[in-house]
């Protein structure tokens, strides 16, 4: 499924890199610890987190993630958005908490690495 379909389906707000929504998403990972994401997320995964500072972009770039979903309606910092725009990393915001958004992604058929 493409990122733009997920954005539409789960009614998320796109905050950066709207040009890169045609990317195919392969799965997902949820964590607020960057080391954990570095170790366990995979290429083309969607990352669900409540972190909003700019280091999430560095991690997303290094792991070649499809995008970052920020939960609880938290707004990413301006520096985060500037960096994400530059690096082409889509940042999406959902009003839902992690548990709920991950549940819905699962319903859409997405899986992590089990």
């Amino acid at each position, binding site marked *: 499924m493409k990122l733009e379909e997920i954005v539409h389906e789960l009614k998320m707000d796109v905050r950066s890199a709207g040009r*890169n929504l*045609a990317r195919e998403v392969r799965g997902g990972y949820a964590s607020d610890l*960057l080391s*954990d994401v*570095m*170790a366990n997320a995979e290429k083309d995964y969607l990352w669900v987190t409540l972190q909003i*500072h700019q*280091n999430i972009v*560095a991690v997303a770039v290094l792991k070649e993630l499809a995008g970052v979903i920020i939960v609880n309606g938290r707004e990413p910092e301006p*520096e985060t958005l500037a960096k994400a725009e530059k690096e082409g990393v889509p940042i999406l915001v959902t009003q839902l908490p992690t548990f709920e958004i991950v549940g819905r992604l699962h319903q859409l058929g997405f899986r992590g690495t089990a």
Partner: protein
Amino acid sequence: MGKDDGFGRVQELSYELKVGEVMTTTVITVAPDNRVGDLRELFRANKMSGTPVVAGDRLVGIISIEDFIKCLADGEMDCPVRMRMTEKVEVLYADEPVVHAIHKFDRRGFGRFPVLDRKTGHLVGILSKGDIIKGLLKKLEIDYHEEEIHHYRASHIFEDILADKTAIRLKYDVRGKDFENAGASASALKKTLSRLGFHPQVIRRVAIATYEAEMNIVVFTPKGQMLADIHPDHIEVKAVDKGPGIPDIERALVPGFSTAPEWVRELGFGAGMGLSNIQKSSDKMVLKSKVGKGTDLRMTFFLYR
């Protein structure tokens, strides 16, 4: 950039490229006073299905093959173009991104749009779907060649250097507490290794380990350096700093053990997984540290395991 990112790149390009860069600039036009009957030869010779109508430099309408056929059916071949053209013309501007044009083609179903200069309002070109495809392909080819050249140059470097032993050393300075640039060294190294033609698996391992090492320098020390030695069969990365040092290395290696302050943890760092991530990603890890002097971390990655 991976090969499977192709579609994303085309999308990106459709934002970067402007209509003016891909349009056809030699436009065949007719004047409002031309006879409709004269269009037949014009359309046939140029394989066109419509053409802009221009008075002076000004676009005043567009006349299509459909208009021509209706005129023919009515037996009014001598009628001036002015009487039969569509006056309300949908146009594009030369400074618009190509993606606007794509949307417009989708919405309107027209075969082509006249292109105007936004300032003067003059007709400067015409755009068909074919022009867009040609423009995108040309740009993609240029991009591809540029990356190929980088890749080619870099991946042959070891073959081209004549020496008993060859190594390339890359040095990156890392500033402590600079969370803005944290991860930049790991990113730069990753890109370089990819140009040098290393296997993605190896690059991934190096990226994870160097990111963690870089983060340790950023979080705990005033400054440090990352030194990557690239050999034909292995990569060694040293992360050195003159920070506070690690009092108990054995404990520091236990997954989950962390001395990071609360504010760093709130940023998502300091989970106590950095060193164990490095250990898992590298083939060999040697950690030396003296309290008050600094830390010296060496990571080795073999290319053929």
